[in-house]
């Protein structure tokens, strides 16, 4: 049910992001999702790759500072108001989202959103009440 997300500390400077993607490319690791949260001086790069173990090993070997955290992905219909319907449910159910971003797939008609939620039990229960559940990693070809 959980997907492993890798967060990497990045200094805010030209070429910093390319260093990470270069490393992933060299190790033949495919990106599934990516988001960046930043301040003026630094940022947190959040990655979902097809192989989080190999990706984090490569980054650690490169001297990067990272943390691996479980996140959840939820399918939403790829149409207007698709995401809104889900977020309305979460708002109604009083679920606080720490952060979220979208995940790339090649499946027609479905988009996926990655969620970092503090109260996951409540989140999963609420999804179940609406006949939804977090996506399993293998459905997304993620190890």
């Amino acid at each position, binding site marked *: 049910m959980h997907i492993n997300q890798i967060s990497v500390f990045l*200094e805010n400077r030209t070429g910093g992001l390319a260093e990470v993607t270069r490393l992933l490319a060299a190790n033949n690791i495919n990106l599934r999702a990516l988001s960046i949260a930043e301040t003026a*001086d630094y940022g947190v790069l959040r990655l979902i790759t097809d192989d989080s173990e190999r990706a984090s090993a490569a980054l650690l070997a490169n001297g990067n*500072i990272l943390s691996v955290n479980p996140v959840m992905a939820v399918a939403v219909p790829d149409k207007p108001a698709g995401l809104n319907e889900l977020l309305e449910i979460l708002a109604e159910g009083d679920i606080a989202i720490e952060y979220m971003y979208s995940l790339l797939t090649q499946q027609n008609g479905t988009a996926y959103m990655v969620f970092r939620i503090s109260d996951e039990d409540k989140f999963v229960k609420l999804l179940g009440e609406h006949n939804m559940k977090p996506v399993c990693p293998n459905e997304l070809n993620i190890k």
Partner: protein
Amino acid sequence: MNRYYQPEIETASQEQIRAWQSERLVKQVKHVWDNVPYYRKKMEEKGVTPDDIKSVDDLHKLPFLTKDDLREAYPYGLVGAPLKDCVRIQSTSGTTGKRVVAFYTQHDIDLWEDCCARAIVAVGGTNEDVCQVSYGYGLFTGGPGLNGGSHRAGCLTLPMSSGNTDRQLQFMTDLGATIICCTPSYAAYLAESIHERGLRDKIKLKAGIFGAEAWSENMRHDIEEKLGIKAYDIYGLTEISGPGVSFECQEQTGMHINEDHFIAEIIDPETGEVLPEGSKGELVFTSITKEAFPLLRYRTRDICVLSRKPCSCGRTLVKMSKPMGRSDDMLIIKGVNVFPSQIETVLLEQGYPANYQIIVDRVNNSDTLEVQVEMTPENFSDSLSKITEMEKSLVAALKAMLGIYAKVKLVAPKTIARSEGKAVRVIDNRKI
């Protein structure tokens, strides 16, 4: 014009000054021996007793005091008068968080204010002047010292304290301030503001007394030109009293040390050996009139040169050059003493690695301090708000330790150069 505040002292013969010094030193050593067990122990360890000190020539026999001693003896260990006779505390930052706390009897304050009055009269201050004191008031000695000196010199005193430039300029123009006392960087900032606001014709300043931080001849010329004044240096340290330990006269070629209160020596900072007049070395002061905080042979860590060449102002007091550097790693930022070790203490307390770099710069005539520290796996989180919270608490802890704002910059691991042996912790980009 009244050129001296205490002419009989300021123009006394060298012999007279030496006689005063010897007499007061002998008395002071006895006073310290009887009242300051901490220093008595140091003397005993060196095998010196008050009987060995018969004149200034014997000064070199006494042990040194350093900032480490002040920390060890903190807070009351070096006090030489009963606390019931002490009336004031002033303070400055110390090496690793323990502040330097200095004590004063009323007599000490009287003499300190006399020293400051000498400085104000030396730049032409009289009872017809309006003296704006824009040093900070409070634990910092700048405001209280010059304030007292200004009273004694008979000036109409404006106790502005530091900051609030709008209000500073309003009082300066409305009340016709003729003398201003502040840090040189604040003077440069005020000069810039006066220039920008087109107030040059509305100010009546003729002289400024600027101290508590390093400044160059270039900066002096710049301030003098922009404000149409004469800019004078003043020197002092809380441990010895505060501003007014030495002061510039109208010749502007060094600061006359108030030798009737403070004996100056220049030593080799490595060996502690006293160097002959004219040598460059570390300045050491012995307070010979202080009652509450009578420091003997206190190492200032300031590197400078003393000169007894006759001065055109008529003063016979020895002159010291502007400090040319430090024999320790103390930085003076916005007039505040900052030690890298203080920053290190805070970083370790807050769970950061001791590998850090301090970048000091001067932007728009104001000092800036940036502390660069490496991110660690323990401090990292996928939540940006957790990282920024941590950063904020580090900024707050640094502010609490240093008394000034330091920008914190979190950097990637291994980006701060690790040098063999002594690390280069400080990069000072100020062009003063």
